[in-house]
């Protein structure tokens, strides 16, 4: 079953269209990677799907319900079902890691006893192997730790879909692989749907079930990762050729 279905979707900023009239589906319980060269509209598409940037045209459905940007209720429904891992984590600097992860729980369920919140936060941080750093502030964490902490925050309310904006960018290969493993564990263990924006070919080869390849303001390829090799499109082959050269997985 598809959890997100986009039809004739155009995205961009102001009057500048970055991606025009694309149609695709994101299946439930799998990892879909959104790939493309820099400036192809990957992050812009992710922002639109995450309810942050109104589409310039067309629209999309989330869990069978059309997302209406003019309706607060529609956006609230979307936000309740998703988690977002931002490129630099976007942890609130004034709060400790514990408080950051506890934030969505406290805000949405203020009646929950602090003991329950504490256990939820601990479970989330343990999942990303950061339970020992709960008292630290974002400025005291490394880039990889910040991203893992942000992932814990995105996961703490058990969203249906997690959007990850370039999770491997700026990370060393070991930390990057750790994050990939984490995404695979989330998919296997919790049947979570993940939409990962990236251009790290190793990461794509490791985690992707499906691929959306963006280029020249459109969708160049949408399908199974396994079908990429059979694609007759020169751009698709050129883009992914490096995967085979560098793949050591």
């Amino acid at each position, binding site marked *: 079953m598809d959890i997100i279905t986009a039809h004739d979707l155009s995205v961009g900023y102001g009057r500048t269209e970055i991606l025009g009239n694309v149609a695709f589906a994101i299946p439930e319980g799998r990892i879909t990677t959104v790939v493309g060269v820099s400036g192809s509209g990957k992050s812009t598409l992710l*922002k639109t799907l*995450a*309810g*942050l940037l109104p589409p310039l045209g067309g629209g999309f459905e989330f869990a069978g319900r059309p997302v209406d940007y003019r309706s607060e209720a529609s956006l*609230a429904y979307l*936000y*309740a079902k*998703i*988690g*977002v891992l*931002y*490129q*630099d984590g*976007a*942890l*609130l*600097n004034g709060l400790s890691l514990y408080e950051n992860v506890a*934030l*969505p729980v*406290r*805000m*949405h369920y*203020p009646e929950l006893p602090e003991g329950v919140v504490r256990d939820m936060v601990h479970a989330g941080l343990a999942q990303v192997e950061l339970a020992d750093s709960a008292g630290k502030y974002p400025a005291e964490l490394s880039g990889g730790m910040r991203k893992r902490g*942000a992932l814990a*925050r995105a996961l703490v309310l058990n969203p249906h879909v997690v959007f990850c904006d370039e999770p491997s960018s700026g990370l060393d290969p070991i930390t990057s692989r750790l994050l990939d493993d984490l995404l695979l564990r989330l998919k296997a263990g919790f049947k979570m749907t993940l939409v990962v924006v990236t251009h790290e070919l190793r990461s794509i080869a490791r985690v992707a079930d499906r691929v959306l390849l963006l280029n020249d303001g459109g969708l160049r390829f949408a399908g199974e990762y396994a079908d990429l090799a059979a694609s007759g499109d020169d751009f698709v082959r050129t883009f992914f050729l490096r995967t085979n050269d560098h793949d050591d997985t």
Partner: protein
Amino acid sequence: MSETILLPKILRAAEIVRVLSEIDRRTVDGPLALDFRDVEEFDSSTLAFLGHLADRLPGVTAVNIPEALARAGEGFARRPDPQWPERPGPAPAGSRRDRFLQALADRFVNRWRVLGRFMALLGDEVYHIGRYLKTRRGVYPGETWNQMFFMGYRSFPIVCMLLFLVGVTISITSAEQLRLFGAESFIADLVGYAMLRELVPLMTGVILAGKVGAAVTAELASMTVLEEVDALRTMGLTPEKFLMVPRLIAITLVVPLLVAMADASGIFGGMVVARVMFNILPRAFLDQMVNTVDWTDFAWGLIKTVVFGWAVVVGAGFKGLSVGRSAEEVGRATTESVVLSVTLIIVIDCIFAFVIY
């Protein structure tokens, strides 16, 4: 008469400069040949120099170009347009007068849009405060206290010191005029009235704009640039509520305290001058003052300052939450926020003057 310059083995930017000056120094008219046969080491400046010869120096020819240089030059064949890197814009439509009027109209419409967005934010904040007071949800616990500490405790020394000095200044400057009419005793009336009604609200508002407004804008703008505001939104929180409501409640609660202390400081400043210059005892000064000013003067000053405080925080939040994605916009937004807040304070003060007097 033809002349030839034999180029050196290493031909890079420094050597090219020497060759060009040699070409300029040439006294003999007629064609000139640059002999590249010895050139072994070259870089992109050499390739650009070859292109320059072809385009700009028609009387100069390049001969004996080594194969390696010619091969490298092939990759350099796509040369930029003469206008590059200027971005070619669309051809201007209409007459100069039409374009001027169009630009003026666009500017006017943009200003109206900005005003509309500002008023919408103000309306949102009133709604969010109402909702928060009713439901007590959507704001981080303890944040209002943090903001009160920052806006009140951290601001009160500077507010008191400046208002004391304003009290001193207004007394000294008016003292001479009052002395001319033998009306020294009215200094207490003047200081009390001016401080409570006008100077304390205005000065406190301006200090808040510089201290609180700039800090709020810088913080919110940084959060916007670092995607923290987006993160709040996708967590299902409303940044306009989560970030702004504690600040608005804090400013509403601390302003009365600030105003009371600022009034006291300003009047004390006037009292010191009265004692020193006119030998008016503090008790007499206060007795004289309370004959002229009453609690409505204090109340109007208080109301004005609360409104100024709101203008500062809403203006600062508006600027902070409207930035784009670049770090430089944080600085620009902070500056604009202070200008906006001070402008709003003066405009609102002017409106109050019509209403009160």
